[in-house]
Structure formats: C-alpha cells, structure tokens
C-alpha cells in the first residue's frame, strides 16, 4: 500500500458556526511534497471547502504562512518529509483574528505598515521625482539597510512574537524593520518623521528581546537585532536633543 500521512487542519466558517474545529485528512505521502502541495491535494480531491491563502509557491509572495506543528512557517517551503511518519497539524497564524479556516485578518498589519512611512522622504520634495539622474549610492552604503529590504511581509514574526500576542498595539517586528530599512538608506531624509511612531509607547521599547521573530524569519531580516539598534539610536537621539535643550 502506498504511504500516507495525516494532516489535521483548523476549520472555522463564521457563516455556519461560532467555534473552531479540527479535521484530519489522510493524504498520499510523497517525500518531495511541500505542505502546500498537501493542502492543494486536499482542496482538489477531498474537500473543496478548505480555505487558505497561497500564490507563488516559491517563498517570495508571503501568502502561505501558517502554524505548522505550533511554529509559524511558509507552507510552500516546508516539506512533509520533515514530519513523516509523524502527523502534521496546521493552524492559522497565531496572534491574528481568524477569518476562515487557515485565513487570518491582516488589517492591523497593513495599517501599521503604512504608518511607518515606508517610502523615500526628502527635505526637497522635487528630488523624489527627478529622473535626470540616479542618486549615487555605494555598495557599502547599501549594505547598511539591504538585509531589511528582504522582508516579504509574510507576518510569521507577528505570529511568533509573544509581545504582539499580549499587546496587539505593539508595532511589531516587520514594521520596525521596515522603518529601519528606510532610516538607514542614504537616499532617505525622513528619520525624524518616523521617530514619533517607532519610539512611541507601542514602538521599539515594548520589545522584550525574546528573539523569536528572528528565529522564524524565512528571509533572515533579523528584526530582533534591528529593534535593539533602533532603541540605541533613539536613546542617543533623545540624549543629544536633551543636551541641545530641545526637550
């Protein structure tokens, strides 16, 4: 008999019932199938109502993050063979409201993303659309922020962050990393405009340096380190502004 593997998924349909349930499917086991391949098999062959997000299936669009046996993972690049012959439990990303089955509500994240002003800010506004020449930026200057450009907004770090779980107002790892990315881009002059948000009560100071965000990040953005650097930067800034008599 062909090999099989059991996948248990969270089910929730607000049209029908108020409570979360689980359902277990048995699917054929292939050692080169991703968990997403498994979910797609269930949807095509066993139960068309199973609901989840996916798109690129190459770990760059950021759609398919779910809790896999308790850890936030991209399901397109997590394989059945990591768990076989054990069972797999798939739940929606933790710390977010659930819309249906494995689909969570990202409204809060999307709002925060905008609030950090993730675009190049110039003192002279006409710089922003001057196409006569590019800004000069050396590779060394680019290295100061490049790692933080790699965030795919998959929100695994929010699902992993115990602080966000307790305080949903916390700006959170990916958005702070994005603020850092622009603050450290030599083309940008908007650091002061972002400070109020990043150093607010719900900003960097809420982070208690657990480090789970960095652990689960599939793109090595290292939000944890960035948050600590932003803290130092803001403390220093506060100190200097104090010396200058601004506060």
């Amino acid at each position: 008999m062909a090999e099989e593997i059991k996948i248990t998924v969270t089910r929730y349909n607000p049209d029908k019932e108020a409570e979360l349930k689980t359902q277990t499917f048995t699917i054929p086991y292939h050692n080169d199938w991703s968990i997403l391949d498994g979910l797609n098999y269930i949807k095509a062959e066993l139960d068309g109502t199973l609901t989840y997000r996916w798109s690129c299936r190459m770990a760059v669009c950021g759609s398919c993050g779910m809790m896999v046996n308790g850890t936030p993972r991209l399901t397109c690049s997590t394989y059945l063979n990591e768990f076989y012959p054990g069972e797999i439990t798939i739940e929606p990303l933790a710390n977010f409201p659930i819309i249906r089955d494995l689909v969570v509500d990202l409204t809060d994240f999307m709002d925060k993303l905008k609030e950090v002003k993730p675009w190049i800010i110039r003192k002279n506004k006409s710089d922003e659309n001057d196409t006569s020449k590019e800004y000069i930026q050396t590779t060394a200057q680019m290295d100061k922020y490049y790692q933080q450009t790699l965030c795919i907004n998959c929100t695994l770090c929010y699902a992993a962050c115990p602080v966000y779980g307790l305080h949903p107002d916390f700006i959170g790892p990916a958005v702070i990393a994005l603020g850092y990315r622009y603050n450290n881009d030599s083309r940008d002059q908007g650091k002061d405009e972002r400070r109020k948000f990043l150093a607010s009560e719900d900003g960097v100071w809420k982070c208690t340096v657990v480090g789970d965000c960095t652990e689960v990040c599939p793109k090595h953005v290292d939000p944890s380190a960035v948050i600590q650097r932003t803290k130092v930067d803001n403390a220093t800034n506060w100190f200097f502004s104090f010396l200058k008599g601004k506060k």
Partner: protein
Amino acid sequence: MDIINHDILIVGGGGAGLRAAIAISQMSPSLKTAVISKVYPMRSHTVAAEGGSAAVLNDDDTHDLHAYDTIKGSDYLADQDAVEVFVRDATNEVRQIERWGCPWNREEDGTIAARWFGGMSRKRTLHAADKTGFHLLHALFQTSLKFDTLKRYDEWHVCALLVDNGKVGGVLALNTRTGVFSILSAKAVILCTGGVGRMYAFTSNAGIKTADGAALTYRAGGPIKDMEFIQFHPSGLMRTGILITEASRGEGGYLFNKDGKRFLENYAPSKMELAPRDIVSRSIIEEILAGRGFKGTYGSYIHLDLRHLGEAKIMEKLPMVRELCLDFAGMDPVYDPIPIRPTMHYTMGGIHCDKDGKTPMPGLFSAGEAACVSIHGANRLGSNSLTELLVFGARAGRTAVEYVSTAKPVSADKLQSLAKDRMDFIQKRYMKAGNGKEKIGAILSELRKTMDEKVGIYRTEEPLKEAIQIIQKLKERFNKITLTQQSRVFNTELTAAMELDNMLEIAHVIAMCAQVRKESRGGHARKDYPTRNDEQFLHHSLTYQGKDGPRRETFPVTITKWQPEERKY
C-alpha cells in the same frame, strides 16, 4: 446592490497597476482612484520576477539599439512605434523607481549597474541581485502608500466589466472577505491583471495568473491580441517549473547536455546561452528529443551549470537561485549543476491596446502582461517585461486621467441593471445548487495537461485541433460543476470556479489562433510550418468572442525603420 463611485479603477495591484496608480495620484490627487486586487498588492506575481529590467543608461548604448534588439527578438511582430516609445521612456522610469527606493545593484562609483541578458546587444539589464521583481514591487507598493487619496480594495475579485453600449462604466466585484457583491463604478477601468500561466501544468507562474483580464475583456466584447504567442522560459526547475533566472546565464552559467557538451553552439553559435528564450527553449527540447537529456523521476532535463562562477559570485549576484535550488530541488548550485527544462513563463498576447494603454472600448485601458501593446511581438526579450510594467503602467495611468476629464459616467440605473444581469449569470453559472458531478480540480488538471501536450513549445495541426475539441468538451463539463459550498466568507471555491471559467475561455482562443497561424514566428513554433511567412502572417491576430467560439480578425503591424529580416543569432 451597493454602488461605490470612482473616477478611475485599476484592476490588479502588481507592477503595472501600482505604477498606474502612482501616476494618477501624482497627476490628479483630486480624482477618486482605487486599486482593486484579488490578493494584497505585494503578493502579486511581479514579486517573482528575478533577473532584471532593461533600459539604456550607459554611454556605449543607444535607444535605437535597444529598440532593434527588441524588434529582432520579437521576430518582427512588435509594433515599432510602440517599441520606440518604450525604450525612450524606459530610461526615465528606471531612474524614477531608483528615486523611490529600489535597491538597484551598483557599480563601484555608486551608479546603477547592468548585466548581460539574452538577445540584448549591450549590458543594459539593471538588477537588484536576482530579486528584481520583488524589490520593484515592494518599492512601488510602499511608495503608493504615501498617497492618502489612493483607495485599495484588497482581496476583492472582479467578476465582470459593466459595459453600456460598448462603453465601460465600472465592474461587478466580490469582496471575498464578506462574500458581498458590489458595483464599483468608474469612468475609466485599467486592467493590469497579468497573464494566463496557470492554464499550463509546467509553469513558472503563481496560482493567481488565471487569464482574468483577457477573459473580462473578451466577454465584454473587446478584442484580445496575439494570444497564440506564449513564452517558454528555458530554465524551469524540475518538478515544480519554478523559475531559475536567465541572469544565471547572463552572469556566465552554461547549459550542458548529458554528453557534457555546450549544445547551444549547434543552434545559436554567436550568442550561445544568451540567445533569446524561444531559441534556447527549443534547443533544449531538441537535445532531449535526440536522447541527449538526463533522465529523472519527472522526465528528461538538461544541466544549468553555475559551479565555475564560484560561491562568492553566486551569493552576490544570484542568491535567490541558490535559495530556490536549496528549498525546492534539494541541491546546491555551488556544488552541483541545476536540473532544468523549459517552463511556461509569459503571455506575449493580451488585451488589445495602443502605446498609451487605450483599448478600442471607450473607458477601458490596460497595461503590463495583461495587455498587448505590442512591444514583444512573437517573443519577449528577458528583462523587457519589468520595464514594460513601469513604462506602460505610467502611460496608461496618464491616458486614463486625460480621458476622465471629459468622459461622462454611465448612469447608476444603467449600472444597476447591467449588474443585475451579470449577477443572475453568476448565480446560475457558479453558485447554483445543481446536481452536476463535475469538479473544478479535475477539469483544471485536464486543461493544464492538454495545453502542455498540445499547445506547448512545438505545435502541429492535428494536436492543435484535438486541443480545441478537448477544450470545448471541458467547457461543456464546466456547465455541470457543483460547488460543495454556498457559504459567503472567503469562498475560494467560488473564485476558483470563476478563474477556471476564464482560463477555459482564453485557452480556446490560444489553441484556435495557434492552429490558424500556419507559420513559425518567435514563441509560436509549428513543426508542420517551420519557417516564418511574412507574406501571409506578418499581422497581429485579433480575437473576439463569437456565437460559436472565437472569431479571428487580423490587425496590421506597425513598421517604422526596421524592415523584417531573417532572425539569426
């Protein structure tokens, strides 16, 4: 039904849609503009483009050279006036996206760097490592957030264009989150919905690439153009079809057959691995057919070898290639050659429009892969499509602004009655509690198999005719589908049904146009008609929905100063 009013509605939040949105927001912040997308914009498939974006920046290069390369690459089916506009605007657009934060790789002096790409006679492909589409999309999306006037409908699915006497007045759309249908009215609608990739089984395309824009236009009576021209990218990762960028050859990678020979010397000796994609893909298939491929669990393949580039260069220029190989093929290109074969990659054809994004239907505009301007003709050169998103996204946006300054909206009453008709159709076609036994998954897999086998890299008369018959049968079977659920919140079974319906409609057009075009040109290679036939086929195919299937007309190709010549590399 609810009506939400807009001046301009952009369907699709990928590169072209966002570039259009920014152009409009900058030009006319007072206009009510919205982007409606079936996924969050940063999930759009632009995100997966890897190698780069072509534009003339260096002193040793000229716009004419870029134009000539593009036209020769297109096998002379590109409209040359449009190509001239494209290469000129490209230079500004790549600098503009730099000013919006795109982290282009740099030369030592801090200016933007370029790399080699297939069919390009100069180094003109700008890149952000091998994640160029990702960086470009996020730079556009993040920049778009600064315009408070720009509204977004994330995870809304457009079900139909609302058309009054040929004039577009908005769309009927489903908010997937709530399951509620609404009318989004607009004086101008810009379709930026991407290509048709998912109707093929072996494809580099994301799950969302389901021919939506072409199908919306086609059902609304508009023409779609050159649909038979499908690009197969030479290097799809075995099993999944995931893209391994052409930049891996641009940076010096080799293709080997199982005899250890760089076989391109038999097909394109002057360009070798950097010949255009159609030629490299066919060469790989020829090698495999001649028994010179490697054999594996998922069929035959050849080797893309990067080992001689060394780990440092691979990590600097091709980090994503390495990531993809490790994650999706379980091998490391630093130490082993990559197993690849051609993968369906790009739709050259699309919604018929001109170089300003204007379609023949008043109020309807298009840009990006969904559109067919045409600058790519029968074969697109690698790295011209990211640039296309920027250039024609911006142009379509500006054209729409101009159009709405004088256009009158379609009346609310009229929109209500149009929407009611469409709603009845949707209820009946997709949401009926029928007793049919057909399943979406089964029809989709047969469609994908058919397109791979009969409308693939090489085409011949009989298989094409069979494909048309199979697609017609699949359409009949589609009439008997039953959804297993009628619930409202996030009903992905319903959206999958609508997507499959779109793909069936457009697959029919592709197969039919491929059968009618009895010549070989660019990405359309007929085994039974192996040469280009300018006398009979130097024209675009325009297709309309007819009573009994697609109705094909022809449309002239614009030639300015480059006369068709034999295409050799």
